[in-house]
């Protein structure tokens, strides 16, 4: 059941935000309300899975065959940028409130380290198609999970009496530290 191990480790043990520090920018920026957190998580999932499949296909069918592996970074990031544009158009058309609430962070998914990371890992870890899909879904699930938990905590945090220097982002970092500590306890799962 290696796929299951891959899935669980990507969601909990090597969680993309709390363990690998990827996707922190939206983590700090979008996570003030649970609804926008879930919306962001959904958008990232769509982009991550779509971009992973596209980059996987392009790498194995084109770059590898033509010995152009060094072009991977340029090609991947352009594919991701295009996918994000596509996602933006779709959300703007079908879910306008979400489009408004995500604001600038929607196009910023392009610079979300997590998306590029997954695309690169799929290649460097020599995943096959199924493993790629599982890894992309698991990583975005882990991202969404942490984003959602964090936003729930932050809704309360904003009302708490925080010391002045810590108000806003620093105290959020402390919360992230505690969450990372909690998730690291899951390390023995697989």
């Amino acid at each position, binding site marked *: 059941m290696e796929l299951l191990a891959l899935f669980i480790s990507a969601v909990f043990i090597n969680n993309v935000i709390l363990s690998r*520090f990827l996707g922190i920018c939206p983590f700090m920026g979008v996570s003030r309300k649970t609804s926008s957190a879930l919306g962001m998580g959904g958008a990232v999932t769509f982009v991550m899975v779509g971009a992973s499949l596209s980059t996987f296909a392009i790498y194995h069918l084109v770059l590898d065959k033509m010995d152009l592996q060094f072009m991977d*970074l*340029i090609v991947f990031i352009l594919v991701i940028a295009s996918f994000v544009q596509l996602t933006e158009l779709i959300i703007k058309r079908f879910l306008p409130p979400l489009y408004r609430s995500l604001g600038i962070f929607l196009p910023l998914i392009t610079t979300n380290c997590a998306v590029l990371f997954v695309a690169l890992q799929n290649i460097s870890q020599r995943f096959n198609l199924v493993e790629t899909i599982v890894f992309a879904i698991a990583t975005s699930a882990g991202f969404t999970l942490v984003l959602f938990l964090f936003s729930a905590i932050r809704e309360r945090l904003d009302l708490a009496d925080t010391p002045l220097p810590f108000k806003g982002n620093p*105290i959020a*970092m402390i919360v992230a*530290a505690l969450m*990372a*500590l909690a998730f690291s306890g899951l390390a023995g799962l697989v």
Partner: protein
Amino acid sequence: MNQFENFRKGFLRENPAFVLYLGLCPALAISTTLNNALGMGVAVIVVLTIANTIVSLMRKITPMDIRIPVYIVIIATLVKMVELLMHAFTTDLYTALGVFIPLIVVNCIILGRAEAFASKNNVRDSIIDGFGMGLAFTWSLVLLGSIRQLLATGGLNLVNPFNQAVLFEFTIIPSEYTISMFNQPTGAFITFAMLAALFEVYKQKRMTSLKLKGKEVD
């Protein structure tokens, strides 16, 4: 805008990592040791400076609507070159920084400066801006990395990445008192939070003192 002022801002008032919260992914992940922090910082300085130069050189001919993908291609190319060069000439550092070298592409700082500054200013100013921002970011990484390494292992060291010669090495905290948590994600977040709070304190103090003097706060 006074170039020197701009240069200075990045270090404290508008520190990209601790005040603007940009480029966090590598900041937290790479800052386990001083060596790695410095290595990553220099890589970012190189990419940022050259990217700013090229974007500024091309600013008159780049079509508005397509500028972001163009900047992305330029930055991605530079990052890949840096990656290949590091793989060949500084192999140990390359292995230590791992996937975060290609991830420099999505470091918001670089795209941000290209869009906000280099596309609108001449080459000389853009070079200084890129170099300055890179230096400020490196300074943030070094701060984070030194503290974490000091607390987690008790000492600091620096190695020449090209030939592994040890440049300096010292231990000041005995090993019984080291807190290995600072090597972990939790320690990274906590150190970052503390530093961010400190920067906030500095910002507030400066604002109050400027207001008291009747000066403008920028």
